[in-house]
């Protein structure tokens, strides 16, 4: 029989060892479908690494994909800290994208130093406002936010489509449901020539540091943690629970909204209803892999992005169905999840004297 015993603080060396073990386990698992598809496994691994890190281009591609994941991951991490289960980052991302397009395609004009902040703020605000609804429904009426945020994802996506086929459609778009392009002055600058990597990554990194600082060092973060860990005690101690949740909701939505801003104002230049391949949902995974730590979110997002980009590129180089990429991401995710246990718990095999000895 196996038993788990919680452990205390974990040394860094152990974290590293466990992470490496998880990665190895994931690669071994991934070998199964690769072999099934008739690939030479080692060659495939090599191609995967090359696909994510093999060139400046692939490296920037990996970072480009990580940027929105960092932001949606932060959105989930912040909300989950307060036990506000925001499953709606996908919708909030689209809301942010929609707002930044509404502002950035000519509604206001001016130089970059006005337009870029305006676009960014509009996106953050829209994402925050979308999350405000479920938060208020939860705090005022006790409506489960998992459900409302989940359902709002569909509503918002449909709303975006409606706008893109209606008032916000690009008149020059030949009837395609897409928005007008963001003005050049409103677009987030690129970080490298000829590459897609853009300022969205910087926004994401700053947001992660800011969130870390906010949660860790400020009164406000203290209140968030207290509300998340024990709302009743927080209320008793005079912490405004509802107001705290509302602030958390706004922040969480805003972070997801920023992910949308990056995707349109940084990457694509205009909005279509398919800019996100599920960044919002992956954000939850990223946040939990990171143990809800804002800094960890960056690492987790880079991890997910590199696995995906690497595996995707590998599937292309080998001619295997590119559904393999998501499969490998899923397997890696499950392995990392399980490996987290080795950090939190000592695992004891009851009945084995040796194990007993070491557990003391």
């Amino acid at each position, binding site marked *: *029989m196996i*038993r788990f*015993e919680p452990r*205390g603080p974990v040394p860094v060396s152990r974290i590293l060892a466990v992470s490496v073990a998880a990665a190895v386990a994931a690669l071994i698992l991934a070998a199964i479908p690769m072999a099934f598809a008739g690939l030479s496994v080692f060659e495939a691994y090599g191609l995967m690494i090359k696909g994510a890190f093999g060139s400046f281009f692939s490296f920037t591609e990996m970072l480009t994909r990580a940027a929105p994941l960092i932001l949606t991951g932060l959105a989930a991490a912040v909300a989950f800290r307060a036990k506000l289960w925001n499953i709606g980052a996908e919708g909030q991302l689209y809301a942010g994208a929609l707002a930044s397009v509404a502002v950035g395609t000519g509604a206001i004009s001016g130089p970059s130093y006005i337009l870029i902040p305006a676009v960014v703020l509009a996106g953050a605000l829209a994402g925050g406002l979308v999350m405000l609804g479920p938060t208020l429904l939860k705090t005022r009426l006790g409506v489960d936010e998992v459900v409302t945020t989940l359902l709002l994802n569909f509503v918002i996506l449909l709303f975006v489509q409606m706008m893109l086929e209606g008032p916000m459609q690009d008149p020059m778009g030949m009837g395609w449901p897409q928005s007008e392009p963001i003005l050049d002055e409103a677009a987030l600058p690129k970080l490298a020539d000829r590459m897609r990597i853009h300022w969205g990554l910087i926004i994401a990194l700053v947001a992660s540091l800011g969130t870390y600082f906010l949660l860790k*060092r*400020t*009164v*406000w*973060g*203290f*209140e968030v*943690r*207290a509300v998340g*860990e*024990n709302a*009743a*005690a*927080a*209320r*008793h*101690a*005079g*912490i*405004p629970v509802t107001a705290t949740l509302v602030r958390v909701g706004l922040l969480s939505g805003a972070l997801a909204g920023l992910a949308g801003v990056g995707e349109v104002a940084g990457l694509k230049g205009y909005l279509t209803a398919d800019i996100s391949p599920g960044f919002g949902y992956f954000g939850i995974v990223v946040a939990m892999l990171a143990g809800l730590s804002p800094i960890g979110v960056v690492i987790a997002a880079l991890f997910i992005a590199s696995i995906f980009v690497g595996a995707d590129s590998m599937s292309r180089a080998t001619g295997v169905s590119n559904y393999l990429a998501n499969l490998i991401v899923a397997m890696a995710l499950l392995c990392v999840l399980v490996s987290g246990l080795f950090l939190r718990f000592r695992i004891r095999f*009851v009945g084995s004297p040796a194990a*007993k000895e070491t557990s*003391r």
Partner: protein
Amino acid sequence: MTGSARDAKVVLRLEGITKRFGALTANGEVSLDLKQGEILALLGENGAGKTTLMNILFGHYVADEGRVLVDRNGGGLLELEPGSPHAALEAGIGMVHQHFALAENLSALDNILLGTEKLAALTSAHAPARRKLEALMAHSGLNVPLDARISRLSVGEKQRVEILKALYRDARVLVLDEPTAVLTPQESETLFRTLKTLAEGGLGIIFISHKLAEVMASSHRVAVLRGGCKVADLSTAECSQRKLAELMVGHEIVETIRTTGTPGGSLFVLKGVSAGEGRDALHDVDLDLKSGEILGIAGVSGNGQTMLARVISGLEPLSAGTVMLDGRSLTHASARKMIDSGLARIPEDRHHDGIVGAMSVSENLAIEAIRKPENQRFGLLRFSAMRERARKLIEAYDIRCQSEDSPARLLSGGNIQKIVLARTLETVPKVVLAAQPSRGLDVGATSEVHRRLLAARSRGAGVILISEDLDELMRLSDRIAVIHRGRLSAAEPAETLDRSALGLRMAGHSGEEAA
């Protein structure tokens, strides 16, 4: 006490039980015998290892060393499979946990039947079960509404369901972990009467308690744990309360003694307060607390005490009435406002309302004052100042914890209570609301709480003490009011009341009738 219990056969034997949690030895080589028909009291400070020992006995925990032997009907003492509640139940051991192990969404009957029927069965055989239970209830006096959902039952009723669970399975050994911690005196008395009947019928009983009076009154034998080790095992007849207290703590306990004080003028006043709805509602409550006095509030639990405490804590909106402190209105004040106005509140459920278990001791000590300049500047937390202050409070209040950074959840109940006391009393409050402040605490911790409340009183604060423990109320209060069905009687000087008069009023008889 009955001679027969002395030479009855041993039904349960613990041999050299050792249990470690990391570096801590929760139980060290504990051996214990229980005889048929015997009531054994297990004593010890908070964290002495009582619950751990019982959890090993019942299979929730696995001992690192030692074994548990149980008498099989006729088969002599046999070793019990470790780590299996199922095996313990099979062997005739029943356990009533410190925190109730009941499914609130099921009826009492279903809770009792849980696990007694084959899971693959297509129907649940309620009728024969009901017959057996009705017989059991009639015999033991443990009456519960079998078809009511657990969530609707009172604490006492839940306790009885827990015992019925064990009896229904024909337990021959019954373990009760702090069964009276949440019961009213009347309920406790009934419980012990029942336990005696059951013991006479041959049941071996172990109960854990911090209330020495009931231990003296109801047990045959007492075993005392200190620091995880058994330090005494003696017949109750050879004991006195004082001796037991010393055995537990390892040194003499100083009784807290109240000196008559001189109450000042009106300090904190409730007028015509109504709040809440249903069973726990308050109706038209008047209360007038003077400075320098302790006002006790007696009552059977579930008569509005919780609502009263919530109202005073600023957690519940009033439907009518006013609240005044020092002549200023606090009628619709929030929790924050109450704290800032000088109200210290000790919640009745310290785990639920008192601390944030995942946060550190120092954070829990700062939580009520987190927006005060001593803890923050420009919204940034001042960690070193918080720690500094925490270290002082830990020292001053003798809070036992590894460090100010360890999570509060790891502390024992008594020490958690000390965190709450420290952070609230340190602010030199004008009014202290103490709701069930010594519930579940050992004698040492209890006397510490009492000392602190009396100290607050003597420096001029008004204290509202809500308690179900009449001894505590009589010992500490200057005046006592009784709450019944959400109505609060006028407070009377404690000297003019005795236990029986209070008991009658708690049962709903008016002052005149009682007199």
